[in-house]
């Protein structure tokens, strides 16, 4: 045990005492007087890019709402109609009473979007990773994955009981070395992400997928942060780098570009449909409400024709990245690689100060801190939206400049 126990002595056997260090860190941060960065309430949401926070009109720059579909009139109408026609919820599992017409239509929309044979919709993106990974790779199998993989990927690995072999972030050689050392005959699954959400950097999928295939591994790519935006048809980084046909399973989410909630897996594997019966996080939970799958299906169908929005989103990302760099901020990537621009803060205290200074000027970004971040970094993570206007991006840069100078993070 550590000797930095909190002042309030816990009774013996208190199972929550293992979180004392976390409680301490949080108390220290709040004692400095900053607004709690993990307890923000949006009183009103005006659009994909604007909300009222603490009574103030605020530009949203930390929502993952990349394509701005949350207020699309067709999407809203589809949701209202489904709510009226099918009710507020399914009250059941997909394999019992929880599959409605809308769930099938949503899976049809996904198959069409990706040009793949099979699609399976889960209640969240987290459950999609948890379910698919734990069902594919079991005891005795090996999972080779990037060390910076999302929590849902790690949890899926752990639940499946496979041997977990991480390699250094985006390091092709480190990945290959580990694949070579796996015992002959063992099942192998390589797990990669298209865009890594903390720094907004992209994986070298072209090389990695080829190497995985050379070593007889199956490949799963999580394209949560690239769907709708990256690739000619918005299918993600695997499409952009020309390797989508070699990817066995693509995992995605409805809670980013699609603009609602839910998760999915698409695949061309001929036996894929058996997953519906053997995947516990799919079977033992209630399916998505009819209104959610209706909004998702409508949104996915519209995203197929989103080339103009994609182009504008790229412009926003490039401008924000260049502008922040020019102001002297340290960024997570040298070049803009996705719709995420991560600004590196010197430490949690100053990161929270900067976050608050931005919020008081009417700009919301995500404050990300360890253990979610790589290398124990504190980040102000900005995610752009295709609905941010060019003028809004300039306003965002002005607010960053003022807050950066006021907190001493950039030279004033």
């Amino acid at each position, binding site marked *: 045990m550590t000797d930095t126990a909190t002042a309030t002595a816990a009774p013996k056997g208190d199972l929550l005492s293992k979180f004392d260090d976390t409680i301490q860190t949080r108390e220290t941060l709040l004692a400095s007087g900053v607004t709690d960065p993990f307890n923000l309430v949006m009183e009103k949401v005006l659009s994909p890019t604007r909300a009222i926070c603490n009574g103030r009109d605020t530009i949203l720059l930390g929502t993952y709402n990349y394509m701005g579909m949350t207020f699309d009139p067709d999407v809203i109408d589809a949701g209202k109609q489904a709510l009226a026609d099918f009710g507020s919820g399914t009250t059941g599992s997909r394999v019992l009473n929880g599959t409605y017409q809308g769930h099938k239509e949503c899976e049809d929309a996904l198959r069409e979007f990706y040009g793949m044979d099979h699609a399976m919709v889960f209640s969240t993106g987290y459950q999609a990773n948890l379910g698919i990974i734990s069902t594919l790779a079991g005891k005795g199998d*090996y999972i080779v994955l990037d060390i910076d993989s999302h929590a849902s990927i790690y949890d899926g690995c752990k639940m499946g009981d496979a041997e*977990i*072999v*991480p390699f*250094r972030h985006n390091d092709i050689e480190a990945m290959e*070395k580990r694949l070579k050392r*796996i015992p002959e005959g063992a099942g192998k699954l390589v797990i990669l992400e298209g865009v890594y959400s903390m720094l907004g950097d992209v994986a070298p999928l072209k090389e990695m997928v080829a190497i995985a295939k050379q070593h007889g591994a199956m490949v799963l790519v999580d394209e949560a942060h690239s769907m709708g935006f990256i690739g000619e048809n918005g299918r993600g980084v695997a499409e952009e780098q020309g390797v989508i046909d070699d990817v066995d399973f693509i995992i995605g989410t409805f809670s980013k570009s699609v603009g609602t909630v839910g998760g999915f897996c698409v695949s061309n594997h001929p036996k894929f449909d058996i997953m519906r019966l053997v995947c516990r996080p799919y079977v033992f939970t209630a399916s998505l409400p009819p209104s959610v799958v209706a909004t998702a299906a409508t949104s996915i169908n519209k995203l197929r024709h989103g080339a103009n929005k994609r182009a504008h989103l790229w412009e926003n990302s490039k401008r924000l990245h260049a502008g922040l760099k020019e102001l002297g901020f340290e960024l997570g990537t040298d070049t803009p690689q996705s719709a995420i621009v991560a600004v590196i803060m010197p430490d949690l205290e100053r990161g929270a100060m900067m976050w608050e200074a931005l919020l008081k000027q009417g700009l919301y970004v995500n404050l990300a801190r360890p*253990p979610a971040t790589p290398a*124990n970094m504190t980040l102000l993570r900005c995610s752009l939206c295709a609905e941010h206007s060019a003028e809004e991006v300039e306003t965002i840069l002005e607010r960053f400049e003022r807050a950066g100078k006021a907190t001493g993070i950039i030279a004033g």
Partner: protein
Amino acid sequence: MTPAEVDTRIRALIEPFNKKDVAITDATTFQHDLEFDSLTVMDFVAEIEDEFDIIISMNQQAEIETYGQLVTAVHKLQDS
């Protein structure tokens, strides 16, 4: 390779990671005595894996708390 040889090679590998020059015995723990964070663990494990051409999966890492346990585990792994 004998356990003693494995020990000698790991001792050499650990040196750059042992920032506080902690005297290492079989009972030395990585988390508390050496204060390795998750990043240091990853780098250190990668060095050992490359040196001995083995895999130490995260499942196996979870069972290894002390230096002595590591030497035993590596000796076993490079033998198999």
